[in-house]
């Protein structure tokens, strides 16, 4: 079992997460993509702590905590946005664009 393969998996998952975030026209799918990317990072941290160092695992633990926070708040925001705009498609919400 080579550590490089884990790193490749991590890179693959990270890229997939990014693609999901960009291409899926759904806010919840975006949150899923973020979770996937965070896990890819976690995978990297743990993989480098493979040889007995536990700092990576501690750091990954904090990442999980932050991810939980992010998921909770993100979910709340999604619901709020859905309630406000009656859509969960981010493309339909273009308030950032200059209004003409």
């Amino acid at each position, binding site marked *: *079992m080579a*550590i*490089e393969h*884990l*790193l*490749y*998996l991590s*890179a693959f*998952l990270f*890229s*997939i*997460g*990014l*693609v*999901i975030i*960009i*291409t*899926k*026209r*759904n*806010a*919840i*799918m975006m*949150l*899923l993509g973020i*979770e*996937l990317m965070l*896990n890819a990072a*976690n*995978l990297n941290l*743990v*993989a480098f*702590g*493979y*040889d*007995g160092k*536990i700092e990576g*695992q*501690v750091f*990954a*633990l*904090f990442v*999980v*905590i*932050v*991810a*939980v*926070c992010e998921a*909770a*708040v993100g*979910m*709340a*925001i999604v*619901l*709020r946005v*859905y*309630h406000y705009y009656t859509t*969960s*498609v981010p*493309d339909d919400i273009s308030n950032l664009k200059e209004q003409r």
Partner: protein
Amino acid sequence: MNLKDIIHYFFLLLAALAAVGILMAKNVLHAALSLIICLLSIAGIFVLLHAELLAVTQIMVYAGGVVILMIFGVMLSSRVANKPLNVETARKIPGFITGAGLLFIIVYALTTTSFSLHPNSSTPASNNVREIGFQLMSSYVAPLEIAGILLLISLIGAAVTASFLIKK
């Protein structure tokens, strides 16, 4: 190749396939289920890497919490009665190109870097969980406290943000 390696690569392949499944999924629920599979596979990999505490946390927090939360979110934010939970895609080509570019960069960086690893140099102790507990309560006690506060704040924030549901 021993059994451990086989399991390791099985989880590795499963995680990759699950990630592709998320990407391919037409339905949000299917995507969420694929994410659970992916996260569980990663948890399995964590176990093999002797990160048991992290693996358990992963299973509990993600599979038991986050994904369920998301499934509930899907239920709430989609009108299931008159609209299927289909997910449309957009910006496919630029998205894939960007993703491929990122992958290329990382893979390029990985292949050109030589990691001075010490394979099987040390077998992690079985009291890994205990070690982490000590570390958290000693070296990392401040981050832990701050993380607790962050959790609290995010809990309150999420509750306040979603409070319209209660008002209804």
